[in-house]
């Protein structure tokens, strides 16, 4: 994608690590690729729970208006997220789904769809269910190309808690390769 302003929305439920995905993406783009990236988030009850969504704007220039209105890329990790946000996806936008958690309807003609069983991959291939969001990061990098693999990898390493680098790198690889296997 080479638009000046790319709007990304990531949505799912609490515990899936949605915000961290947004954080990894934004950091990759702004810190490791020198662009600008604004991450905002919906915030549930004071500490916990419920539906969760993150919005990332990527741009080469200063980002003024910081919110997503019509995402170029929509990542949905729950049925509720799909129902709620799919209608706002751009007519030529990209939809990425956790395929085992979401039942899809029809897409518009110019929209693109990429599906991944991220949770299962995290459980089965990485051995840590909680890394599903990093699997998704790899996948997103692979299928959209909005950020380079290298930047995304660095961002993952820079973000995850000390001691968990290895498993997360693995998760990233799993997702990335799964993505590459689709887009070739």
């Amino acid at each position, binding site marked *: 994608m080479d638009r000046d302003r790319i709007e990304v929305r990531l949505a799912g439920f609490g515990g899936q690590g949605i915000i961290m995905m*947004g954080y990894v993406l934004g950091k990759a783009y702004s*810190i490791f690729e020198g662009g600008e990236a604004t991450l*905002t988030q919906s*915030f549930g009850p004071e500490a916990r729970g419920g539906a969760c969504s993150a919005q990332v704007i990527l741009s080469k220039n200063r980002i*003024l208006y910081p*919110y997503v209105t019509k995402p170029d890329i929509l990542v949905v990790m729950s049925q509720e997220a799909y129902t709620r946000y799919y209608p706002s996806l751009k007519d030529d936008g990209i939809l990425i789904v956790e395929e085992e958690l979401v039942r899809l309807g029809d897409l518009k003609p110019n929209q693109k769809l990429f599906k991944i069983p991220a949770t299962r991959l995290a459980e089965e291939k990485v051995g840590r269910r909680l890394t599903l969001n990093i699997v998704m990061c790899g996948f997103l990098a692979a299928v959209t190309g909005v950020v380079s693999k290298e930047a995304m990898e660095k961002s993952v390493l820079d973000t995850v808690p000390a001691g968990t680098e290895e498993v997360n790198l693995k998760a990233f690889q799993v997702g990335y390769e799964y993505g590459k296997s689709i887009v070739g």
Partner: protein
Amino acid sequence: MANIKWTTADPKGVLTGAHYLDGNHAACEGALAAGCRFAAGYPITPSTEVVERFASRIPEVGGVFIQMEDEIASSIALQGAVWAGLKAMTVTSGPGFSLMMEHIGLAAMTETPCVFVNVQRGGPSTGTPTLPAQADMMQARWGSHGDYEIIAVSPSSPQECFDFIIDAFNLAEIYRVPVMFMMDECVGHMTEKVIIPEPEKIKVVERRWTDKKPGEYLPFEPDDDLVPNMVKAGDGYRIHVTGLTHDERGYPAATDVTVHNKLVRRLCDKIYKNAHKIWKWEEMDTDGAEIVVMSYGISARVALRGIEMARERGVKVGLLRLIVVWPLPEPRIREIADKVKAIVVPELNVRAQVAREIERVVAGRCPVIPVGHAGAGVHDPNDIYNAIMEALK
């Protein structure tokens, strides 16, 4: 001569480099860069991350964080620390800010330089704890009893949280006032790249220590700029500091109308008369504009989308973004008011908190159109667009 010394930041507090931070974390880094070495706080959503970061960073920088038993305690522990010589802040949101009102007055009265960070959420009362508002703006100025003046600074991005909290600390030191750093939940929880410069590039004001000796020094004798120079406990000056009306020696004079008048007027005048040195705002395309939008914090960024929409219809719209909200840049506002068809003021409150003050300043020169929003979300840019189009009529 006003004893203001600019230096550069203490490297210990400065995390030079590009960081991907939310506004709350950036504000903490800014505070550390500004030389803040003491924070007292009490947790409250959506501001707690500021002190959480401070708690984790400060042992390596040198200084103390303490979580006090409540906001009342925090807002005065901070002042104790200032009088012991440190730069200090406290951090809170709505309900905690309300509890700090008595001590904002104390800081104003005793001219204790310090920073109160308020990450605004929806109110009144417990309201919407996790969601944004800009509805404590008038409270920041009027919330304590009696007359006093403060400075209020409002950032609209994590970078500005970093940059402008340094300004806030500097202004606090220069004018010896409590400075209100008025964030909002959006800015506090929005993550962007924050560039932290080298320590030598960060300009920091030292405390305006007196150069007088103990015998000569009067703790509340104003300097040229109406602000007294300062000492700290332990320096041998044996000062007395009181929240009672006091004379230049710092002695209570609680029944002396002359002393009271002089003191209270000076506390206000030091802001009024130095206002031109305090104002800070950003303008975009105000020259030749038919309509100027005036806003601050997150709303100023949201407004840009509304402005864009109006421009697409050929309307000449400018933006004046207030960075220092209090004191308002009154002359500039009047200048603009004389030239435009209307001023539109979007903010996340329904009582037109800043708009009403702009309206007063404008005094009929042009219509001032508040675009209110109760908070718990940000404006729909359409509402701002509509207000602009309406204003044209």
